[in-house]
């Protein structure tokens, strides 16, 4: 059910990107899609009653270099978190570029309406 809501969020973003005719709205749709995927990845790694994958002094034995078994059992999956860190940055980068293109296009055409920005045809 939680995954389904996440997928719904993805589809709302896709709908916005496909159907809307305001350039900024389209960008927002793409952002929503990216949020949904990031959320989905993190949710995949969640452990019921888990702890964050950061070892604190209590969970580490300095003499034997052993990590407490409790931590091994309850830590959430760290891999998706590393992936999402990367993908958040990527979406920020593409957002910046997209907004630059939007602003520049607005300066050229004087509108955000993509049905009026139609010089290329055929």
């Amino acid at each position, binding site marked *: 059910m939680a995954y389904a809501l996440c997928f719904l969020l993805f589809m709302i973003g896709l709908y916005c990107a496909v159907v809307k005719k305001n350039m900024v709205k389209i960008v*927002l749709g793409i952002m929503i899609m990216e949020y949904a995927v990031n959320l989905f990845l993190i949710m995949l790694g969640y452990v019921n009653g888990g702890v964050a*994958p950061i070892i604190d002094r209590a969970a580490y034995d300095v003499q034997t270099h052993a990590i407490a078994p409790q931590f091994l059992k309850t830590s959430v999956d760290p891999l998706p978190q590393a992936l999402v860190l990367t993908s958040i940055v990527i979406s920020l980068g593409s957002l910046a570029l997209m907004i630059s293109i939007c602003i520049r296009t607005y300066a050229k055409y004087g509108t*955000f309406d993509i049905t009026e920005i139609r010089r290329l045809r055929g």
Partner: protein
Amino acid sequence: MTLFYILLVFMVIAAIIAVETKDLLSAVICVGAIGFGGSLMFLFLRAPDIAMTQIVVEVLGLIILIRATISRDLTFITGDREFVGTVASVVILFLIFMAGMRIFDALPEFGVPVFARVPETASQAYIARGLEDTGATNIVTSIYLDYRAYDTLGEATVLFTAVIGATVILRSQSRKRLEDPEL
């Protein structure tokens, strides 16, 4: 558990408002709300790194987005593209959605991670050996900057590319005058 559902429903509602509202600025703010909702969600999902990153990115992203919308004579471009196209795409999206719902049958219930089902995944090794292998107590950082540092190089490059791209797109003059044939 209910907390997650409340937050998720909040995000979905914010997304619907962002998509359907007529005012561009409110749409942007609603997307900000989704971002902050997501950030809270990350915090409760035991991903403090992501929560922190998400929140700072959200702030900057909102500034960028508001820059695009503010001080424009907002022309309230609402509505969709052609009617037939809209209906067709809605039907297609609905079909994709129904097809996509089936995939959740194959997934385990929420709260059981992948590595609890599949034996010998990398994740278990990261948790068990991360500190010993890399010396960082934050396992996410040890993956991000050591095991999968090559991804991070790519990610830094994406940002670099986007910045160069943005400055290129926003530069004031793009072509030299070509009247001079000896150029």
